[in-house]
């Protein structure tokens, strides 16, 4: 026991610089940079984030300046006699009120207005599949995997020609993709870091999300809501194709689906009619 303890500690002492050295070629800013935004509207979120950051840096600088400058100027050593005031003079009250108004009207209400506009006019405004060409996908979350269902050739969900994949989401770029999401057991959250958004997968309820991918490549999907011991392994892979590549894959997958989907097996038909 003591010996293992000792060896493990020694082993650790020698290995931790290796951890620290990992990926050292990245600069600090590259290291903490958010995942690359590959969606049409993710920039709205980035912009608002930066706007809030600007405001925060400004106000935090004021607070820090206040602390540092006052601590320096008015320490007991330098400033023997305190100024006796309750802070209830007219000038004091006006100053406090001005600060509040600056924060509330200048920053808060601006953020609220912009965010609300983005949310109601973009993120929370579903595309209409009857009027425009969208890719519809049903997502089923369960401990600890993601299942994706495409409607297949007949464009109707829950039929034998549906393409169903496990932890493998493939979508075309430059086209709206519309997800409907639910969960089989506990609450999960469908998190695509590269579009900067997530939405909960709730048992007994269907939530939805839409986006338009703009760049082809391989990305990751994660579960963002604690869902049990192996929450950390609930990972899926996202492949974004150009329209041609997507069509090629989809056609092929369709062929296999028709061969492999057993119409007698009810577990295949976990999908729902599109809402």
């Amino acid at each position, binding site marked *: 026991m003591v010996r293992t303890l000792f060896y493990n500690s020694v082993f650790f002492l020698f290995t931790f610089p290796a951890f620290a050295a990992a990926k050292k070629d990245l600069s600090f800013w590259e290291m903490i940079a958010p995942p690359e935004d590959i969606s049409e509207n993710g920039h709205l979120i980035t912009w608002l984030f930066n706007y809030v950051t600007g405001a925060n840096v400004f106000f935090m600088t004021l607070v820090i300046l206040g602390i540092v400058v006052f601590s320096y100027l008015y320490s007991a050593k330098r400033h023997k006699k*305190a100024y006796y005031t309750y802070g209830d003079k007219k000038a004091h009250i006006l100053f406090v009120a001005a600060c509040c108004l600056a924060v509330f009207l200048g920053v808060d209400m601006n953020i609220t207005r912009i965010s609300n506009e983005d949310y109601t006019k973009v993120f929370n405004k579903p595309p209409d599949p009857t009027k425009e060409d969208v890719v519809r996908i049903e997502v089923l979350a369960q401990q600890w995997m993601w299942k994706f269902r495409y409607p297949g050739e007949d464009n109707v969900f829950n039929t034998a020609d549906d393409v169903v994949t496990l932890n493998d989401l493939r979508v075309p770029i430059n086209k709206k993709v519309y997800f409907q999401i639910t969960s089989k057991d506990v609450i999960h959250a469908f998190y695509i870091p590269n579009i900067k958004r997530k939405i909960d997968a709730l048992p007994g309820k269907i939530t939805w999300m839409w986006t338009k991918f703009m760049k082809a490549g391989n990305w990751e999907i994660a579960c963002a809501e604690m869902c049990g011991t192996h929450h950390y392994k609930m990972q899926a892979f996202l492949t974004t194709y150009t329209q041609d590549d997507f069509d090629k894959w989809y056609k092929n997958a369709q062929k296999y689906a028709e061969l492999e989907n057993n119409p007698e097996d009810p577990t295949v038909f976990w999908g729902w009619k599109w809402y």
Partner: protein
Amino acid sequence: MASFEQHIHDKPTTFISKYIFSFDHKVIGKQYLWYGIFFLLVGGLMALLIRWTLAFPGHAMPIVGHLLFPATNGVVPPDSYAMLFTMHGTIMIFFAITPILIGAFGNFCIPLMIGARDMVFPSLNMMSFWVAVVSGLLLLAGLITPLGAAAGGWTSYPTLSTLLGSPGVGQTLWTMSIFVLGISSLMGAVNYITTIIVLRAPGMGYFDMPLTIWGVWMTSILNAIFIPVLGAGCLLLIFDRVFGTTFFLAGATATQGGGDPLLFQHVFWIFGHPEVYILILPGWGIVSDLLSFFARKPAFGAKATAMCMVSITVLSTVVYGHHMFTTQMSPLLTQTFMTLTMTISIPSAIFFVNWLGTLWKGSIRFTSPMLFSIGVIFVFGLGGLTGLYLATVTTDLYLHDTYFVVGHFHYTMAASVLLAGFAGIYFWMPKMFGVLMNEFWGKVHFWLSFLGLNGVFMGMMLAGYGGMHRRLYDPFVYEFLQKLIPVNTFITYSSLLMGGAQVIFVINFIYSIVKNKKVEDNPWEVGTLEWTIPSPAPHYNFKEIPVVKCGPHELGNPALKDRDFQYQTEELVRG
């Protein structure tokens, strides 16, 4: 405004009546302090284990890991990891911060600062502590059940926390423990509210109360209103787990009938958001007072500060929806909750201006309680401002459930509350134990903790900005998170620094109590009522019930001749 006579009781003589089942609010306050510090250490060790796992996945934590997880050669297994972060959150919120800030300071300070001989219901007070002990035992009992303690996160969302996701009895014990703790908090809250209203010394209007009392008062009101809501939620969860009801089951898991898991989130957060103010309000009060005491001038805009506490108390009850933006609420609700949440920044802005206004043109004495109080301005500034990102719907879509949230609420709930708690401990040490803690080591403790906690929580926010989500046993199974390994290593080193700094505190605390070097009655030269009596306070507090003639922050009055402060029992000197 004492409406009845407060008798001086005989001093308790036996050990049990003096130290165990004591009716004395000061002893109960100290009991809560020890209780809180014990759980703070347990929760802190859990935090270190969590951090270790995140920074060095698959490597054993020296000594501690080997002792706790011999089966896996010292490495924390994934299920234990889930228990660790669940218990860490629960312990820190309900069993460390609540007992220290509300139990210890509330009990100790209320009667002393309002000039009463004890709480208005002393036996309810004693019961409140011992019920809290029962609750702590229930929680710890979960650790030795076959399937281990609760592991669904401190929020315990169903359906994960129903039998479907957590079959073990640990989760039931957790829920019962929170329910029982709610009873304890409720008893405390009723007692505090009544005491503050009924037992204020003659002449003490509400605005003559120190701001600490305002903070504890508002906290108690929130507790009295919202703890029962949490209790109801816990009870329904227990029904679901034990009696087979389906309040929170839905979808495939609800074999018959069925409820809604979101219902629990509503119940939980309608309590949960006021809870963060329950935790921070006493801290705000303490900091507002201490800044004035050590800047040697009256608290800037004290009435406004008190009224801001009231308005935050009211506002905190109508903003909880911002915890649930990703559940796809109606846009009407997201807009409402976002706007309401933003209005909280008005009273918050007033706090900051008032705190800085108190420092402005003061004559600041940088004692250790003062350093901690100034630290609170900084960390609460960061914590509050980063809340803007999370109150905003669209940025929340990205940041929700990431480490950014973890960093944000640790700044507001852990960093601010801890620093305010330490400020209070250093400040009231003479009144509690009749001793002062070592100033030098107090300052070392402050600077190391301050560096450490900023490293930890700033690092967490950076990791969250980089996209790292919460509650992952091994975040680096994701390729996009692998570049964050150095950030996580940095956070862990900072957390070790912060943890190490607390050793200094514990040694300083115990050593000064054991050494027992007597200190004068009013070492800080402050005029509130608790400093008019000997240190440590005698068991009856005040020989004569004091009569209050001026406010709590009468410092730096130029009309005063021989000293720069005056007691609240003295007529205000006018120039």
